[in-house]
């Protein structure tokens, strides 16, 4: 046993030499963590859609690929499989960051990416441009969702818009009175619901705090919640550190939030409509979800195809399927979001659904602050003074303490 250190040391040294020699060839290049967006990698675009390959591997948000296991009547995966012969394997991504990581593995054919993941995927070379003429349903997608900064580069679409919506404030109607109308309810350091507040566990949640500061602390000069200089980021971090004292737990896994609300471990916090729907369906507690007076951060999701998809034909068929009027209406109603497909509004079971979600309202859509990746080059045009996402990530670790 006394020989242990020497042998271990020798093994370590040997392994280190091995690793160094193995990595020597690739240790150049990369070109520094610059802020300016690098050139988009050249990825070939499909020119035709052939027969399905029989399988389809997706990375998607919870509720986007329902096969009837959560609710028997909510199933658009089995009809797709029947129509195309593509068996769907879906992997839930809990955060945009997780989705980017999953797509980097190269094991998936496509992803339902939000705006804070899309550009990272495009510039990282993980996704291919989409030939929209191969997706017939693209023609009737809401015009204000086409060729936007988060889903296209130089007027080349990198995906098919799926739907969009706002992050909401949800509370347990029995424990929380009076009903809140402002995000202030979750940013109050002296909250009466101390220990039962919940928040989304991702650095992108910093934008929720900066949106609140943008409305209530105008002297900070925040114009865009995703374009924060160091001083503004510090203010948002300060607000979130105060919030941390009242938070019972953070959620990233949506099932965790469902369970926490149903056991009353959480009574108020940020949510998605689909979570509120799941809790309502279980009927264990009564909750309400609203868009508070400050407005909301939100998401606009795009189905993208992997650069080296193993089943590209099935993916093209899926992109067309999920944006068809009937299916897009089903997804939108289940998840609680505005459908991207303009014809979907005729197929919702609740005929007022599209009005509730302002589905055709461009002005409303533009008023939401969609998740996007913060970069050093400010998104509000102030120059290179902003904090980038890696700084947000470090800040998030700091907030959680």
């Amino acid at each position: 046993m006394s020989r242990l250190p020497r042998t271990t040391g020798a093994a370590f040294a040997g392994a280190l030499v091995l690793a160094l020699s193995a990595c020597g060839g690739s240790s150049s290049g990369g070109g520094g963590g610059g802020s300016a967006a690098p050139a988009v990698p050249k990825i070939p675009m499909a020119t035709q859609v052939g027969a399905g390959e029989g399988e389809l591997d997706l990375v998607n948000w919870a509720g986007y690929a329902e096969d009837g296991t959560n609710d028997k009547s909510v199933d658009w995966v089995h009809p797709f499989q029947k129509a195309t012969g593509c068996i769907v394997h879906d992997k839930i991504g809990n955060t945009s960051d997780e989705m980017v990581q999953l797509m980097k593995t190269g094991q998936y054919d496509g992803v339902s990416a939000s705006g804070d993941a899309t550009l990272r995927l495009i510039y990282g070379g993980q996704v291919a441009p989409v030939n929209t003429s191969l997706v017939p349903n693209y023609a009737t997608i809401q015009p204000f969702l086409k060729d936007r900064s988060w889903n296209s580069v130089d007027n080349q679409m990198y995906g098919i818009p799926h739907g969009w919506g706002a992050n909401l404030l949800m509370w347990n109607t029995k424990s929380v009175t009076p009903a809140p109308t402002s995000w202030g309810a979750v940013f109050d350091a002296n909250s009466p619901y101390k220990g039962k507040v919940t928040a989304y566990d991702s650095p992108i949640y910093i934008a929720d705090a900066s949106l609140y500061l943008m409305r209530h602390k105008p002297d900070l000069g925040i114009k865009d919640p995703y374009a924060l200089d160091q001083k503004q980021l510090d203010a948002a971090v300060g607000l979130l550190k105060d919030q941390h004292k009242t938070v019972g737990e953070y959620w990233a896994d949506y099932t965790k939030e469902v369970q926490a609300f149903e056991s009353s471990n959480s009574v108020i916090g940020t949510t998605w409509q689909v979570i509120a729907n799941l809790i309502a369906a279980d009927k264990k507690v009564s909750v309400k979800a609203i868009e508070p007076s400050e407005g909301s951060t939100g998401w606009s999701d795009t189905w993208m195809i992997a650069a080296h998809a193993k089943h590209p034909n099935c993916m093209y068929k899926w992109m067309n399927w999920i944006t068809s009027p009937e299916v897009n209406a089903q997804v939108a109603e289940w998840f609680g979001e505005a459908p991207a497909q303009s014809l979907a509004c005729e197929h919702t079971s609740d005929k007022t659904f599209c009005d509730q979600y302002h589905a055709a309202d461009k002005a409303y859509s533009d008023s939401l602050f969609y998740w996007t990746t913060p970069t050093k080059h400010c998104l509000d045009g102030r120059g290179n003074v902003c904090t980038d996402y890696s700084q947000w990530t470090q800040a998030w670790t700091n907030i959680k303490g």
Partner: protein
Amino acid sequence: MTTATATVPRAPAQSRGHAVSTFLHHHVWVRLAALLSLPMLWLVVAYLGSLAAMLVAAFWTTNAFTGAVVHQTTLDNFHELVSQSVYRKVALRSLGVAAGVTVIDALIALPMAFYMAKVASRRARQLLVVAILTPLWASYLVKAYAWRVMLANGGLVSWLLHPLGMKGPGYSLGAVIITLSYLWLPFMLLPIFAGLERLPDSLLEASADQGARAWRTFRAIVLPLLFPAIVAGSIFTFSLSLGDYITVTVVGGTTQLAANVIYDNITTGGNLPFAAAAAFFPIIAMLAYLLAVRRTGALDNV
């Protein structure tokens, strides 16, 4: 005679096989190489190689926008880890949890193992060993989520504590320590049980004959002989606790531990080099622990 003629046609084949075995018999090193090359390949390439690759990655950085790894040697990651107070706090908290779980498991395992090894009947002993081993067959996640349900508001724990006028720990650091103590108990209990089984009853009887009471016997006879077993168990509980990040996310509320920082930097931050740098902490902590243990001499007879 007949046997001699019968063996003649088979002779070349036999002699070839014979030659190989003779060759191997005379060349010890070839024999050893053939026997060990596959396991060694596994150990060096797959096991230590991947570890080394990770440690080398700690000196790289990433492109802030795409998250792609940039192969440029820098100490920035370590500078960040040392200069930011949050990482010190998380590191200390993780050590505290690992030490706490180890102590709690040792305190629970000692009397249990003693009862199993020295007091219980043969049949009861077998049943107890099975009872302790059975939970190891259940999925780790199932057990962690079971504790999440038990620790929930109005769950089993708060229901049990309510008549005593106490409140459950909720989802907190305390909940993490309780859950980890439950999860890793068998890893402490089994080495101690094995150690106690090897301890001859005659020693205990001799001690009693000399007039020593239970506590004195425990302190002067049982504990010193059992020390290596406790250390072996503590290596398991300490390292498993130090590396855990799932239990914390399930029952930890807002708590984050060292392994969460590593995990978050892989999945959330997409910053593999920083995660690799953060992984130095548990490795160094474990090496320091092993060295400290070695100084006590507990590993000499392992």
